[in-house]
């Protein structure tokens, strides 16, 4: 397969993104980003301006780092869910009378489960939510490099994280369903 990561001119961000010929394509001159999947480890920019991968060893390190990031993302999702379930111990029941079919009065009960806005669990959930959003965008941007090794790292990390963390979650779900 042709190496699509051609040499990028050092001041590439000054060039206009729409070139004279409008056709899109991977590996054309003037396009700084590859738009199709490729396997390579030369001159791969990863998220930040200082992070450039040039050797196979650096690519292996980046693979491991991305794999761990995807695993951490899955774990964070499961952790947030379990934290939410644990903190929702306040259940409010509101009963109100409604007229029944034969003129009788029936009691209709509403159950609301929620957190208080200024409580610590809710603040913790918010902080974890922001971290989760940032990590999910990072993973999206990593997948957007179209580098085959990094994309495989994201997918494998997500699968492994789901396998390891959701195992425990499913057991918890089983127990709580039987209690009701």
């Amino acid at each position, binding site marked *: *397969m*042709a190496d*699509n990561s051609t040499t990028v001119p050092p001041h590439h961000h000054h060039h206009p*993104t729409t070139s004279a010929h*409008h*056709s*899109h*394509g*991977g*590996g054309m001159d003037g396009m700084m980003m590859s*738009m*199709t*999947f490729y396997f390579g480890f030369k001159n791969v920019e990863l998220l930040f301006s200082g992070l450039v991968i040039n050797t196979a060893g650096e690519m292996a390190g980046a693979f491991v780092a991305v794999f761990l990031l995807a695993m951490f993302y899955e774990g964070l999702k499961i952790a947030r869910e379990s934290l939410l379930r644990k903190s929702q111990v306040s259940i409010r029941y509101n009963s109100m009378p409604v007229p029944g079919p034969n003129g009788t009065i029936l009691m209709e009960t509403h159950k609301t489960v929620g957190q208080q806005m200024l409580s610590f669990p809710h603040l913790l959930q918010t902080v974890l939510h922001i971290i989760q959003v940032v990590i999910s965008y990072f993973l*999206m941007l990593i*997948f*957007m490099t*179209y580098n085959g090794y990094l*994309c495989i790292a*994201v*997918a*494998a990390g*997500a*699968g*492994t994280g*789901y*396998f390891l963390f*959701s*195992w425990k979650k*499913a057991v918890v*779900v*089983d127990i709580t*369903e*039987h209690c009701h």
Partner: protein
Amino acid sequence: MHFIFSDEVVLLFDFWSVHSPAGMALSVLVVLFLAVLYESIKVGKAKLLHQAVVSVSVLSSQQLTEETDQDSSASDSAPVSRARLRWFFCHFGQSLIHVVQVVIGYFMMLAVMSYNTWIFFGVILGSAVGYYLAYPLLSMV
């Protein structure tokens, strides 16, 4: 970069280059099918989890009643490990399905990133059709 209406696009892979309206229509159909598949995988995973939990709990409770009926003092490691092995296979299958879901989700994001409006419509329409077809199945037990 902005959305454009165009009959030319290169989607995801080097060999998937579209030059004609017929090719574009076919690509939109493929992307639509991919979006429908993504939504149905989401529903399928939830249903599989529910089925696995139910079947493994039934299996373990059956084995426990067998143990008490037999009134044996042997260790109950064998039936517990059988249920646990079955749960392991169920969970491993679900993890594979999760990987497929993650990959298809990213492929759809990259398809939208081509900034081709037809492809974008295909993704949106496919998500709508997939949700419409798959989510009622979630409440059916």
